[in-house]
């Protein structure tokens, strides 16, 4: 073979190998976001956000009409009282958009593009203000028309989770191991607490403070004045926000690929675990969902299961794919949005019977 051709062939082959290995990640580079208003489910999955009729499982609208390589949607969409659906793009355009939840049309004259990073976290909406955390480490303050109404608050570290509020303070976790407490009105810092590990999940408001899990393999309780204590140790990292139901706090750890995550039920009155060793099949990222007397858990191995209050499995399903997105209750259905499955959304009744699946048309 001609030497030039041989050399060129080797280089092209190596280049192709390198490119396929480096850019071989699918366009959908993380798991979907899911929200519902009881009639429709809103799924953010890659290039599109889909509105799906909860009764029929049919697509009502999608945004945008055509895929745009600069836009990727994975954050959990947030519905506001005035019918807006808020979501930021994880794509290179860094756009934060407001859609009409009814029609899927853009509400604002232009998306907010003032952030330097991607939008992984859902925003907090309180009153007429949007508090939008970005991976650039800033919390952006917008009005309901998408205009900045205050300087962004620099928190440091990538912000991946929705802030929460008790009506007076904002609590927001950061990947730089901190929980920041801000005054809701003045946006001044009240305190920052070091958790000893990254906190990709939101805090949970309750018991006069917030509960938060972290990669330090612990659940901490934080008071409004910055007091904090570890109330539970876990076997592995905690990703999803804990869920408070009465006097009981439910949470799960990520676990290892071979042993799976562990589900915890902590009685806050006695500070004792209600059960000992509940380990569904697979690591757990998502927060549990509590409906009536059942606790619904999803796992990376694709398990979707219902536990009773004693930690016994009531039923278990495997819809397909990996499940990292927290399930939601919409009317009479439990909705599950798997990652890398044949469908984007599945609906189950409370007895675990599948009602429908939704696969977006290409």
């Amino acid at each position, binding site marked *: 073979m001609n*030497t030039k051709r041989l050399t060129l062939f080797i280089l092209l082959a190596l280049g192709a190998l*390198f490119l396929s290995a*480096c850019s071989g990640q699918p366009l959908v*580079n*993380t798991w979907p976001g899911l929200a519902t208003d009881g009639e429709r489910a809103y799924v953010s999955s890659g290039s599109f956000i889909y509105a799906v009729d909860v009764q029929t499982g049919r697509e009502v609208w999608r945004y945008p009409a055509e895929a745009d390589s600069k836009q990727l949607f994975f954050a959990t969409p947030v519905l506001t009282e005035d019918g807006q659906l808020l979501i930021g793009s994880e794509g290179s355009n860094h756009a934060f958009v407001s859609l009409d939840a009814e029609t899927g049309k853009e509400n604002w004259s232009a998306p907010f593009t003032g952030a330097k990073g991607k939008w992984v976290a859902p925003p907090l909406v309180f009153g007429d203000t949007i508090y939008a955390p970005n991976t650039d480490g800033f919390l952006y303050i917008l009005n309901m028309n998408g205009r900045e109404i205050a300087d962004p608050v620099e928190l440091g570290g990538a912000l991946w989770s929705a802030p929460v509020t008790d009506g007076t303070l904002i609590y927001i976790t950061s990947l730089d191991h901190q929980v920041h407490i801000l005054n809701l009105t003045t946006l001044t810092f009240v305190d920052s607490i070091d958790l000893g*590990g990254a906190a990709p999940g939101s805090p949970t408001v309750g018991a006069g403070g917030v509960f938060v899990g972290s990669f330090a393999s612990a659940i901490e309780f934080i008071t409004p004045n910055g007091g904090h204590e570890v109330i539970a140790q876990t076997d592995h*990292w905690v990703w999803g926000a804990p869920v408070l139901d009465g006097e009981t706090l439910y949470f799960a750890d990520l676990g290892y690929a071979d042993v799976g995550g562990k589900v915890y039920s902590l009685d806050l009155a006695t500070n004792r675990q209600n059960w000992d060793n509940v380990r569904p099949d697979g690591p757990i990222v998502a927060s549990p969902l509590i409906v009536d007397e059942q606790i619904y858990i999803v796992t990376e191995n694709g398990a979707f299961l219902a536990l009773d209050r004693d930690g016994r499995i009531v039923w278990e399903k495997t819809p397909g794919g990996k499940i990292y997105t927290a399930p939601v209750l919409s009317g009479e259905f439990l909705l599950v949005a798997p990652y890398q499955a044949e469908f984007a959304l599945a609906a189950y009744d409370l007895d675990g019977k599948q009602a429908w699946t939704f696969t977006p048309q290409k």
Partner: protein
Amino acid sequence: MWQTIIIQPMTNLLLWIYDILGHGPHMFGLAIILFTILIKLITWPLNASQVKGAQAMQELQNDKEWQDIQKKYAKDKEKLAQEQMRIYKDRGINPFASCLPTLVQFPIIIGLYQSITRALSATPLDMLQLARTIYPFQNVENIIPLNSKFLWMNLGQPESIQVLGFALPTLAIIVALTTWIQTKLTMPTSSNPNDQSAQMSKMMSIYMPFLLGWFALNFASGISVYFIVSNVLGVVQYAATGRANWSNLFGSKSAPATNKKK
């Protein structure tokens, strides 16, 4: 298998070095540099055999039998190739030995790229994969997420510096330049226009700087740091063995340094 053999050890090694360095700003860049030095030390015997192979190829060009067959079979390429292969075989020379270290670099580059992307975890899925990658005995929750800043760069992003309103890809330029220097220094000199290995090396010296420069331009700058350190160490290794062919660098037709030394 790729995960177990390449990605997992590389990522854990990078995290371990980063942790030892104190996991502050700029330390992940330093971790990549130390990692590169380690890789160079591990592949030292391979590089040494490449130097030896290149040397043998250079000496072959002045060999009478070699020159004779070039003349004798100048018009019969097939026969010439057969005769060349016979001589290679008789003298235990691998004509592609000079390409081997470059080929070996590619799995390392790909693995390093994926390890850097994973270690810096730009998305929740990356972070989850990182959690899967960490060996159970590694205690790294206090160092995650890693600080991606190194000098003026974000190691997880392609690099450029704003100069007069233009984004100047300085690292890509340095990568291309150091690759060109290294290839030129290690290229065997041949006066024979039909010498295939010399032709291949020459083509490599043209294409490789562009290829790696293009990678540096488009991928995470952590890879560029690896390229530059690797190239500089390669030059140092050659220079230390006294075989660096400085004449190639400046376009001189004079004999290579090794021959002079002899």
